[in-house]
Structures are given as C-alpha cells and as structure tokens.
C-alpha cells in the first residue's frame, strides 16, 4: 500500500512538473520555478536529516556553497569540464561531511545546532575572505554548463534539468525512507537509546544521512553556480541556512513532499509580496507565524491529516 502511494505521488509530481512550463507566461516565472527547484532539492535532502533522523543542521548552505564554489573555481581557474568539477565538489563535500559528522553528531539539541552553525559560518568566511580564489564578496562567474559540446542555456532548458534532478532526489529520498535504513532513522528520531537497545547502529546511520544530505546540497550547488550569471557568497551564508531549515519546518518535517512544498512556497511567496513593498517582511512573518501556531507539524502533514479525518 505504502509503495503504491509513493509511486502515485512521484507520478503526480512528474505530470505536474511536465505541464507547469505551459502555464508559466514568461521566463521570469520559469526562473522562479528553477530557483524553487534548487531549493526543493536541498530541502528534500535536508529533510532526511531533520525530519527523519531528528538531527538539525544550521550549516547546510555551507555545503551548498562549497559545492557551488568548487565548480565555479575548478571550471574558471583550472579549465575543468563542469561535470568533473561537479563530481569533485560532491566527493570533497562528502569527505568533509564524513570527517566532521562523527564528532559533531555526538552532540545533541542546541549543541548540535551550534556546531553545524559554526561549520556553516566558517565555510562562509573562507569564501568571503579568500578573494584571490573565490572573487570575495563580488562573487565569481562560473559560465554556462557544458557537456560534450552541448551547452545548457536559458531558463527553459534549465527547468528540465532541475525538474529531472528533483524527481531523482525525491525518488532516492522516498526509497531511503521506506527501506530498513528509514525505519532505523525513525527509530533513532523516536528514541536514540531505544534504537540502540534494539540493535540499531545509531552513529553509523546518523553519519550516513548527514553525508547524503550534504552531497545532495553540494550537487545542487554545483549546478546552481552555472545557472546564475554571478555566484555570490550570500548563497553560502548563515541566513541561507536558516532559510533552508525554515522551508523544511514550514512544509512539514518527516514529509518529503512537505519539504518540496515548503521550498516552492517560500521561494515564490516573497516574489508575489513585492507589491506590498515595505510591508513585505511583516506579511511574510505573519504567514510564517500563523502556520507555526496553527499547523505546528507543518503545511503538508497537517493538511494530509485533515483530509484523512474527513474521509473516515
């Protein structure tokens, strides 16, 4: 039963992504959709860590930025092909995440949050100050993404790539969640001691999911570097990390589609709120507070539970 609903969800999303460009009147909207897609990919990965394993990361923009800057620097300064640069970035981020995961994930609650926060900020400082390599606060242009003579150009081309990658990420995430690993993770979320007692190697699973979510962020970052005309360090800073966590919590923790909805919603909302000009932050804040007060489990799980109750 569970398997069927998973495929149904993925299929529905695929159909939605396929028809969405038809409904978008111009490239500006496609651009917003692409940005939402990038955020959604990171959030689906981050949700594995926050929603399922119950571990917080306030430094995920750091991994995103590290992947992005790896690509940008290797391609512009060293003439690497973008695909190789992307893989190198993913491997580097994976190794860094693996190396820091063990000591860091021993911490709990606020201490874990502080440690991940620290790592994110360190990455951000390095990017900002190593201006000779990264271009400093002015940023760096990674150029277009090329693969064997084919150049990825224009918002619409990018849309299909990001949509494809998003589907792949969601497929991976839902697969992981429904596997024995997923069950172990949820056990870990419920009670770490309990999970250990029944023989779950909690540390191993925590490290694994931390690395997976960091690598997903890195791959999204590498592609993002080629998508934007100029990559700036603001994409790797503390506020971006907070934004990502907010998207996950807003959409609904422990819900892959929740992370997706949260990312899409919070990427597009500020664009529509620009008509309110100076009141934009107040309205955005109001919506956030309202959701957190009335739907503490997040948007998607609350609505899903509501529909279920109506049916029965």
């Amino acid at each position, binding site marked *: 039963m569970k398997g069927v609903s998973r495929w149904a969800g993925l299929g529905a999303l695929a159909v939605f992504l396929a028809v969405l460009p038809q409904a978008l009147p111009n*490239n*500006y909207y496609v651009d917003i959709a692409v940005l939402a897609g990038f955020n959604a990919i990171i959030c689906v990965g981050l949700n594995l860590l926050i929603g399922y394993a119950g571990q917080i990361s306030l430094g995920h923009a750091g991994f995103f930025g590290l992947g992005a800057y790896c690509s940008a620097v290797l391609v512009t300064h060293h003439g690497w092909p973008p695909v190789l640069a992307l893989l190198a970035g993913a491997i580097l981020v994976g190794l860094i995440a693996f190396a820091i995961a063990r000591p860091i994930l021993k911490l709990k609650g606020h201490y874990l949050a502080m440690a991940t926060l620290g790592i994110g900020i360190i990455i951000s400082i390095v990017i900002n100050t190593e201006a000779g390599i990264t271009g400093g*606060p*002015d*940023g760096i242009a990674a150029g277009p993404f090329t693969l064997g003579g084919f150049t990825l150009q224009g918002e619409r081309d990018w849309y299909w790539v990001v949509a494809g990658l998003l589907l792949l990420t969601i497929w991976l995430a839902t697969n992981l969640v429904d596997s024995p690993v997923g069950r172990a993770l949820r056990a870990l979320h419920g009670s770490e001691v309990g999970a250990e007692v029944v023989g779950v190697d909690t540390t191993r699973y925590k490290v694994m999911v931390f690395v997976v979510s960091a690598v997903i962020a890195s791959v999204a970052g590498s592609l993002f570097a080629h998508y934007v005309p*100029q990559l*700036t360090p*603001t994409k790797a800073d503390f506020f971006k990390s907070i934004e990502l966590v907010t998207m996950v919590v807003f959409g609904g923790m422990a819900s892959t589609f929740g992370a997706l909805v949260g990312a899409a919603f919070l990427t597009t909302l500020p664009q529509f709120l620009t008509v309110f000009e100076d009141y934009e932050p107040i309205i955005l804040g109001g919506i956030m507070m309202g959701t957190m007060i009335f739907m503490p489990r997040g948007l998607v799980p609350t609505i899903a539970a509501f529909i279920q109750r109506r049916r029965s």
Partner: protein
Amino acid sequence: MSMKSWKNLASAAAVALTASFGAAQAAEPIKIGAFLSATGPASFLGDPEKKVLEKYVAEYNKAGGIMGRKIDLILYDDAGAADKASSFVKRLIENDKVDVIVGGSTTGTTMAAVPLVEAAGMPFISLAGAVVIIEPVKKWVFKTPHTDRMAAEKIFSDMKKKGITKYAMISENAGFGKSGHDETLKVQGNYGMTLVADETYAPKDPDVTAQLTKIKNTPGVQAVINWGFGQSPAVVTKNYKQLGISAPLYQSHGVASKDYIKLAGDAAEGVRLPAAGLVVASQLPDSDMQKAVVVKFQKEYQADFKAEASTFAGHAFDGLQMALAAMQRAGGTDKAKVRDEIEKTSGYIGTGGTVHMSATDHMGLNLSAFHMVEIKKGDFALSN
C-alpha cells in the same frame, strides 16, 4: 463568504479589469524599470534615488506625461544583494516588459544586471560608481556618476599641489572599494605617486584600528586614501581620529552625502574628497554653467524631503532625465533607437556635470565637473 458575495467580488474585479484595459488602450504608458538598494547596507544610496525617481515621475505625470503618454515607474528594492538584483532585472525585462531600466545603486548589483540587459537588448542607465561598468564599453549599458578612476585622478592632482608623493591606501575588499583600489594603482604613475602601505577590510567590519595602526607605523606616509561607501568610510574616519594620525585623509565620492558627516561626527573635520557640484551648490561661482541646475534641484529636493540632496539623489535625477530625453528624441520607446539616442546625449547639464556621451564613452563626464571638497564645521566646503 457566501456564494453571492463571491459573485459580486468577481464581477467587480471584471469591471475593474476592463476599465483599466480601456484606459491602457487610450495611451500605452511608458514603462521605466528600476532596481535600487533602498534598504540594507547601501540604503543611503538607494533611498534618495528611490525618492527622486518617484517624485519626478509623479511630476511628469501631473504635467500630462511625455509625448502624451503617462510614465509608469516599476521599482524593486534589491536590498544591496546582487542575486536579488539579478532576479528583479529578469522580472523587469521578462514580466514587466519595461522600455528602459534606470537603477543599480551599487557596482555589485549593476554588474549582476549587465549580462541580462546585454542579452535582452535593454537600454540601461546605471547609478553606480566603478569604471568596470563602462569599460570595456557595453552596448546597452550607460552610467551617470563619475568613475572611481576619475576620483583617483582628482585626489592625486590635489595631492600633487600639496607636494605629496607617498600615500597609503585602505579600501573595502569588494565592489566599489576594490575597483577604486585597483584604479588608483593604475593611475598613480601618471602623477608620480608611490603607494607605501596597502590595507583592506570587509564592508561590514565594525573596526579597522588594526589596519590603520599598520599604516600609522609605516614610515613616509604623507596622505591616506580610503575607498568605500556606506558605514565603512565613517568607521575608518573615526578610527583614524582615535589613532591621532596626522596625515590628511582623502575619501572618495562614495561618501558625498550628509549622512557620512553625521555618522563620522567631529572626526570628519578636515577630510577631503572629490564630489559633484551638487553638495556645494550654493558655493559654486555664478559663472559655473551647472550652478542653476544644481541649485534648483537642491531646492526642490529639500522642499519635498526636508533633507539635503546627496550626489546619489542627483545620479538618479540625471539618469531619469537622460532616459526621457532620449525617448523624446527617438520619438517613442523602440529600444534600439532609445539606446542610440542615449549614446548621442551631448551637452546635457545635470547634477553630475555636463554630459557628452559617445560610442566609446558611455558616461560622458570629464574631470571639470569634479570639485575638491573639504569637510568644515560639519558641512561640505568647496576647496579647489
């Protein structure tokens, strides 16, 4: 809401839509797009720019618009972030379908917009300082403020008069500050200047005492140049005073605003900088062609906003005037024609000086419009 009230709402909306559509058909408005840093760290640039654009567009509309068409100003606040600027420029081009863009308060936000306007063929007048915006010349990109290179040249010629040959530099590590730093190094040879100490800091650093101490302890420093805008030049100025450095301090035109004097307080006394005539409007000699223009602008701005106009307000004014004049000469909003006409702008006397653009010069200002200004008793004083 009941079914009936929904229906009412829908029909009201339909009426409103058709009404606005009818009006639009009568005379399609001219659409001017703007992206400014009206909030955030560069707000002292973007805020007056926003005020000026809104004020003068409203005045044009009150007088019936231009060429019988109203002007529609579509303005976004990028908060000084390059990525936001790039997203808003896409929006202006793709969604709002504006006829011309006037904006880009900082060098960073402007440079984020450049590839987009170039690809789309959109005439764009930037309000930012660095020379990289117009060098190499970009087909669709123009700018109104003086360049950082001109500021460096002006400062050097002033130093030369005072017999200074060895100077130190402290600059922001990004955008305008970095560009100014690089341009200064390029032109120092022409004036026989030698750089003896070179320090940098981040735009948001709350204290630069360490860097200034190094400069203080470097032998032979006769003057110091600071490149930056916003809070940071005020921080440098304050620390400079606290350390009791006696060499004269030069700032760039990036601080030509009363806000800088307010932030730096007494420490700003005696600081020298190159600036457009606007900040010393009433002190200009009557023979100066610019005087009438800047005095009038200064008066209008003060009447509306109860504050003295900074040169940044003037940049927006000049940008708007040049864009509208070009449209009038082009007889419409055809982008290629408007671009050609902006390039042909010649003899326009604005707040920045007299503008003579050409195919190789998309700014059209020379050093004559730049005045050396010294801060005396909390105000700008002409000191050529």
